[in-house]
C-alpha cells in the first residue's frame, strides 16, 4: 500500500472524526498554549528582575579602570543601548562634627536620568543637574550626617585633601544596600577633575547576550576590568537560575498531568477506531502499514493542534507583551523589582518548540499500546473485542 494512501486515510480519519478530533484537539491546543504562555512568563519574570536590577544604576556590564581619554562611543557595539561615563573616588563627607566616608560617584545627570532609574527613587528634593555643585544622597547616609535637602556638605577629596562644598539636592531610598550605604552621587564638573578611576556602565538591548559582548570588550587593548551583571550580582544570577529551574519543574509537572489526559484521550481516540484497524487487517493490511496509519493519525492531529496552540500562546504573549502584566502590588518591597513590577512575557525558541515537541512525544507514546495491540492480535480477535 502506498504511503500516500495511508496518509490520506489518516487525514480523512482525523477530519471526519469531528467531535473526537475537536475535543482532543482542544485539549492539546489549551495545554500547548498554556505552556507557551507560562514559559514566556518565566522568561519575562527573569527579564524584569535583570532589567530592574541593572536598570536602577549599574548597567549590564561595568567597565572599571578605563583610560581617561577614552571616548565612551568606543564602547558602542551592536546590541548596546547606552554607555554611561562615570568616575568613582573615595571621599569624606563632613557636616558639622559628623563625618562619613563614601565612594563618590560622579555622573552625567541628564544621560543618567535617560538611561537609569535611580532618580525615580528620590524621596525628597530632586535628582542632580548637569554641572551643578550638588550632592544626591541616600537616606541612610543623610541620616548618618543628620542632613536634609538644601543643606550643605563639605566634600574632602584626598590627597590633600581638597575641600568642596556641595548642597544636597535630593535624597533617595532604594532598599538595596550597595546603593543605600557608603555611596553618594554628584554631577561631573561639579568637583575638580578626577585623574583616575574612570568607569563606564554599559546597558544592552533585551535579548543581547552579555557574555558575548563581554568577550568582545575583553579583547580591547586597555588594562581595564569588564564585569557582567552575573559576576557583580551573583545573588540575581542565582535567583534567575532558581526561577528557571522551578518554572521548568512546574512546567514538567503541569505537562505530566496534562500529558496523562492527552495520552488517555489519544488511546480512546485510537481505540474508537480499533474495529476499523481489525477490518483493515482482515483485508490484508501489513502490521507496518497499521502502525504507520496510527502514527500518521496521531502525528497529524498533534501537529495541527500544537501549531494552533503555539499560535494561540504566542498571540496571548504578544498581547500581554504590549501592556505587560502589572504585579507591582506583589513586588513593591522586592529589591529585584525596585524600578517596576510590570512583567513583559517574552517568547524564546525554547518556549516555542518544547511544548509542541512534548505533546507529540506523549501522543506517540500513547499510540504505542494500541499499535502493538493491532500488530499482535489476530483480526478476528480485534473485531470480537469491540
Amino acid at each position: 500500500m502506498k504511503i500516500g494512501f495511508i496518509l490520506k486515510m489518516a487525514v480523512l480519519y482525523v477530519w471526519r472524526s469531528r467531535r473526537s478530533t475537536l475535543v482532543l484537539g482542544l485539549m492539546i491546543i489549551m495545554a500547548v498554549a498554556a505552556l507557551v504562555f507560562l514559559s514566556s512568563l518565566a522568561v519575562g519574570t527573569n527579564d524584569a528582575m535583570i532589567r530592574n536590577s541593572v536598570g536602577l544604576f549599574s548597567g549590564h556590564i561595568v567597565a572599571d579602570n578605563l583610560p581617561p581619554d577614552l571616548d565612551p562611543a568606543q564602547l558602542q557595539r551592536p546590541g548596546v543601548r547606552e554607555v554611561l561615563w562615570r568616575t568613582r573616588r573615595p571621599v569624606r563627607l563632613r557636616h558639622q562634627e559628623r563625618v562619613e566616608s563614601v565612594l563618590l560617584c560622579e555622573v552625567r545627570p541628564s544621560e543618567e536620568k535617560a538611561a537609569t532609574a535611580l532618580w525615580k527613587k528620590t524621596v525628597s528634593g530632586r535628582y542632580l543637574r548637569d554641572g551643578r555643585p550638588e550632592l544626591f544622597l541616600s537616606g541612610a547616609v543623610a541620616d548618618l550626617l543628620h542632613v536634609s535637602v538644601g543643606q550643605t556638605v563639605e566634600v574632602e577629596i584626598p590627597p590633600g585633601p581638597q575641600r568642596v562644598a556641595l548642597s544636597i539636592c535630593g535624597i533617595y531610598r532604594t532598599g538595596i544596600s550597595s546603593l543605600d550605604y557608603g555611596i553618594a552621587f554628584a554631577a561631573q564638573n561639579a568637583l575638580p577633575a578626577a585623574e583616575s578611576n574612570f568607569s563606564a556602565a554599559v546597558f544592552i538591548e533585551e535579548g543581547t547576550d552579555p557574555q558575548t559582548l563581554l568577550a568582545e570588550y575583553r579583547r580591547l587593548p586597555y588594562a581595564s576590568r569588564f564585569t557582567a551583571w552575573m559576576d557583580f550580582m551573583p545573588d540575581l544570577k542565582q535567583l534567575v537560575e532558581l526561577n528557571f529551574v522551578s518554572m521548568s519543574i512546574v512546567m514538567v509537572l503541569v505537562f505530566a498531568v496534562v500529558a496523562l489526559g492527552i495520552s488517555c484521550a489519544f488511546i480512546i481516540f485510537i481505540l474508537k477506531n480499533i474495529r476499523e484497524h481489525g477490518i483493515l487487517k482482515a483485508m490484508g493490511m501489513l502490521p507496518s502499514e497499521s502502525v504507520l496509519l496510527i502514527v500518521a493519525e496521531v502525528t497529524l492531529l498533534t501537529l495541527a493542534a500544537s501549531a494552533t496552540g503555539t499560535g494561540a500562546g504566542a498571540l496571548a504573549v504578544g498581547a500581554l507583551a504590549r501592556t505587560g502584566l502589572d504585579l507591582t502590588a506583589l513586588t513593591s518591597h522586592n529589591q529585584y523589582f525596585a524600578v517596576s513590577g510590570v512583567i513583559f512575557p517574552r517568547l524564546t525558541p525554547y518556549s516555542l518548540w518544547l511544548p509542541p515537541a512534548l505533546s507529540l512525544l506523549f501522543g506517540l507514546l500513547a499510540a504505542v499500546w494500541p499499535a502493538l495491540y493491532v500488530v499482535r492480535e489476530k483480526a478476528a480477535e480485534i473485531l470480537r473485542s469491540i
Partner: protein
Amino acid sequence: MIEVQALYKSFTSGRGKVTALEGLSFKVAKGENFIVAGKSGSGKTTLLNCIGGLETPDRGAIRCGGVDIHRLSRKALARFQREQVGFVFQQGNLLSYLTVSENLALPLALNGIDADDRKRRVRELLETIGLPDHGAALPWELSGGETQRVAFARAIAHAPAILLADEPTASLDSATGAQLVQLMVSLSRQRRCTLLVASHDPEVIRTADHQLLLKDGRKES
C-alpha cells in the same frame, strides 16, 4: 482449491473451554458456491475466519491452492489476504470514516493499483451493485441492504480467488437478502470466484452447489 483437514479450534472464556471446530475436514472446488450451514454457535464464523486467515486454528491445516495458509509468515499471510481473499462481514464492516467510493478503493489501494485505475474500477463497481450515485455517501447514510451491497462490492473489487461471506443476509429483510444473494452468486460465477458463505438463511442455502452442515463444530451427516 480449498482443502480443510482435521481442523480444531477452541476458545477459553468465562464459561470455560468452548470447542468451536472439532476435526473438520472438507474440500471446496474452484469456482464453487459452497454454503456452510448451521445454527448460531455451530462454528460457521470461526471456520470462515480460519479460512480467511483472521483466526489461527489450534490444529489441522487449511490449504488454498496447495499452500497451508497458517504456515505462512505474518507478511505472506497478509499478502494472501489482500490478493486472494475477499471478506463480506455480517454487519458489512465498512470503514466508518471513508465514503462508499473510498471503501471500494481500499482493497485496490492495498494491492497497489494506481489512482486512475482505482477510480475507473470503483465507478464500475458502483454501477454493478446499482448504487452509481452513492459514491460520496458515508456508511451511516446507507440502508442495511445498501451497506451489504457495498461490503460485497468491496470484497470483490480486487477480483479475489476466494470470497468469504459471513451471514451476509442476517441483518436484512428477506427481499433485500434475496437480491443480495442473487447479486453475489451471479457475480462470483461471472468472475470464477470460489464462494464460501456461512448462513442459516434457506434463501442462501438454496443457491449452493455444495453445502456443509455444521453442528457443534462438527460436520453433520
